[in-house]
C-alpha cells in the first residue's frame, strides 16, 4: 500500500482514513506507512497479540504531541473487534481490546495506535503469565552498550542453566528478554523469580546493574525492571513500533547478533524486509514451555 492511498481505502473491511497524516514529524513517516508496516509484519506479530488483553498507545496528532494509553475499546469500536473484561476483586471490570486478527490490527493502526502492549497472560488464564520478562533499561548516562553487556552476561547464565531465553530490542534504549514458562505460577511468583535473577546479577556486577526503583539512585546503570512481571504491567510486543524519532521497532534478534547489532537499525523501514529475508528469531517461542523453577537456581543447585 502506498502512503498516498487516500481516505476511503478499505482493507480487511476496515475503512482507512487520513493515511497521509504525518505521525513521525522528524522524517515524515505517515499513518499510511504505519498501517502498511503492521500489515506486513502481521504474520509474526499476531501470535503474540492473539487472545491477550491489549493496551495500546495512540498518537493521533503524531509523536510530537502527547499520546495516550488506551485499554478500553474506544467509542466507535466495530462490533467484530473482540474484547475481554478483566475482573478484579472489589472493582468494576475493565474491558480490553483483544487483537486476534489482521483486521483488528489494521483498525488499531488506523487509530494511530503506534505501540502495542499485550499482557504476558492470556484472557483464558489472566492470572498466569506465559512469560517471565526481564526488562533491561540503561539509565542515562548509561547507554544501549551497557544494556548489551548485561544481556551478554544473562545470555551466558541462561545457557549454563539450560533455560530457553528470547531476546529483542526494546525499540527505545534497552533490551527485553522473554523466558517462556509453563502456565501455573501467578504474577507474584513470576515477579519473585525474576527478582531473584535480577538480585543475582546485581550481586555479580553491582557497578553496572541496579534494582533501585528511585530514578535518581539508578542513574548511570542498567535498571533490571522485574516489576514488569506484575499483573497489569506490560512490555511492548515483538515487532511493535515505538513512538520515538525514527519509528524504531522492538525487534526480535538472535543471541548471536547481540554483540554487533545497532538498535537504531530496526525501524518501520527495515524490519519488514529483515523479517522476509532472515525470518523470525522468535518463531518458536510460543511452542517453547519450561517450568518456572528452572529459573530458580535454588532448586537446581541446592
Amino acid at each position, binding site marked *: 500500500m502506498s502512503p498516498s492511498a487516500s481516505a476511503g481505502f478499505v482493507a480487511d473491511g476496515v475503512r482507512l482514513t487520513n493515511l497521509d497524516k504525518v505521525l513521525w514529524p522528524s522524517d515524515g513517516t505517515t499513518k499510511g506507512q504505519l498501517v502498511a508496516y503492521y500489515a506486513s509484519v502481521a504474520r509474526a506479530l499476531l501470535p503474540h497479540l492473539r487472545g491477550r488483553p491489549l493496551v495500546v498507545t495512540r498518537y493521533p496528532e503524531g509523536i510530537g504531541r502527547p499520546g495516550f494509553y488506551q485499554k478500553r475499546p474506544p467509542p466507535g469500536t466495530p462490533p467484530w473487534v473482540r474484547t475481554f473484561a478483566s475482573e478484579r476483586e472489589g472493582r468494576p471490570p475493565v474491558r480490553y481490546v483483544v487483537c486476534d486478527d489482521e483486521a483488528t490490527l489494521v483498525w488499531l493502526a488506523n487509530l494511530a495506535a503506534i505501540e502495542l502492549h499485550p499482557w504476558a497472560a492470556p484472557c483464558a488464564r489472566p492470572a498466569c503469565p506465559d512469560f517471565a520478562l526481564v526488562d533491561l533499561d540503561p539509565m542515562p548516562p548509561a547507554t544501549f552498550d551497557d544494556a548489551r553487556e548485561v544481556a551478554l552476561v544473562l545470555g551466558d547464565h541462561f545457557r549454563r542453566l539450560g533455560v530457553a531465553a528470547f531476546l529483542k530490542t526494546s525499540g527505545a534504549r534497552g533490551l527485553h528478554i522473554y523466558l517462556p514458562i509453563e502456565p501455573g505460577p501467578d504474577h507474584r511468583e513470576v515477579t519473585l523469580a525474576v527478582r531473584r535473577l535480577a538480585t*543475582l546479577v546485581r550481586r555479580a556486577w553491582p557497578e553496572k546493574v541496579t534494582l533501585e526503583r528511585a530514578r535518581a539512585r539508578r542513574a548511570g546503570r542498567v535498571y533490571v525492571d522485574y516489576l514488569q512481571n506484575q499483573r497489569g504491567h506490560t512490555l511492548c510486543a515483538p515487532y511493535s513500533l515505538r513512538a520515538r524519532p525514527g519509528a524504531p521497532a522492538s525487534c526480535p534478534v538472535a543471541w548471536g547478533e547481540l554483540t554487533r547489532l545497532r538498535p537504531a537499525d530496526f525501524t518501520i523501514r527495515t524490519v519488514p524486509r529483515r523479517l522476509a529475508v532472515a525470518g523470525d528469531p522468535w518463531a518458536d517461542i510460543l511452542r517453547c514451555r519450561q517450568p518456572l523453577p528452572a529459573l530458580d537456581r535454588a532448586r537446581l543447585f541446592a
Partner: protein
Amino acid sequence: MRVLWKGAVSFGLVHIPIRLGPATVDRAVRFRQLHARDHTPIRYRKECPACGETVGDDEIVRGFEFSPGEFVVVRDEDLERLPLPTRRTIEVLDFVRQDEVDPIYYERPYRLEPAEGGERPYALLVRTLERTGKVGLSRLALRQRERLGLLRVYRGFLLLETLHRPEDLLAAEAGEARAQLPEPDPRELEVAEELVSRLSVPFDPSRYRDRYQAALRELVEQKVSGREIVLPAPVEEAPPQDLLAALRESVRRIEEGRALAGRTG
C-alpha cells in the same frame, strides 16, 4: 519553633514584625498504606473514569459543581483578580473582651514570636492585652483564604487563634433560640450540683492519657522489637556461590573484551 511564615501584626500605626508557627502538634500514631501482597507503599494516581488515563497535575482545573454534573471552570487567573487582604499581615480590626468569645469559635492556635525589630512593640502589645483583659479580632490571609483570627496572650506569648465564622457554626443555627429542655426537679439538681463540687479539681489535662494511643504505640513497639517487620521488595537473599562465581566470570570476560577493544580500536 518551626516557622510557617514571617509577616507582621498591624493595628493603627503600630507594625510588629513577627514569625508565625504552629502552637499544637498531632502526635497520634500514623500509618502508611502498603500493598498487602508485597508491602510496597502504594501511591495515589488520579484517573479520569471517562478515558481511563492517568491525569497529571498540569492537566487538572478547578470546577465548581453548580448543579449535579454541571460545572463552571475557575482558573488561577480568575482567582488572582479577587481582593485578598495583604498577605502575611495580621490586621487587628477591633479589641473585645476574651470572655465574650465562646470557645466554639476557636479553630486552631498559632504561636507568634517577635522577628527582628519587633521585640519592643511585641512586648507592648502583650502587656497591654494582659492589663486590659482584651483580645484583638484580626483579619489575615492563610492558605488562600481570608480568615478571622483572635490575638491573645498565653504565658507571655502572643497566640493567634483562627476562628470559625458565625455562619459555619452548626450548634446554633441562625435565629435558633436556646434549646428547649424540661425543668429538672430542684432536689435532683441539688444532689447533682453536690456531686459536681465533690469531683471538682484544678484543670490539669496531663492527667488524662489517651489510653488507645498508648496501647497502639506499645503494639507497634512490640512488633518492631519482636522482628515482626515486613520489608517491601526487594529483599536480599544470599545467592548460591557457584552461580555467582560463574556470573562474575562472565562479567570479567566482557570487561576484559572491552579493554582489549579499547586498545586496538
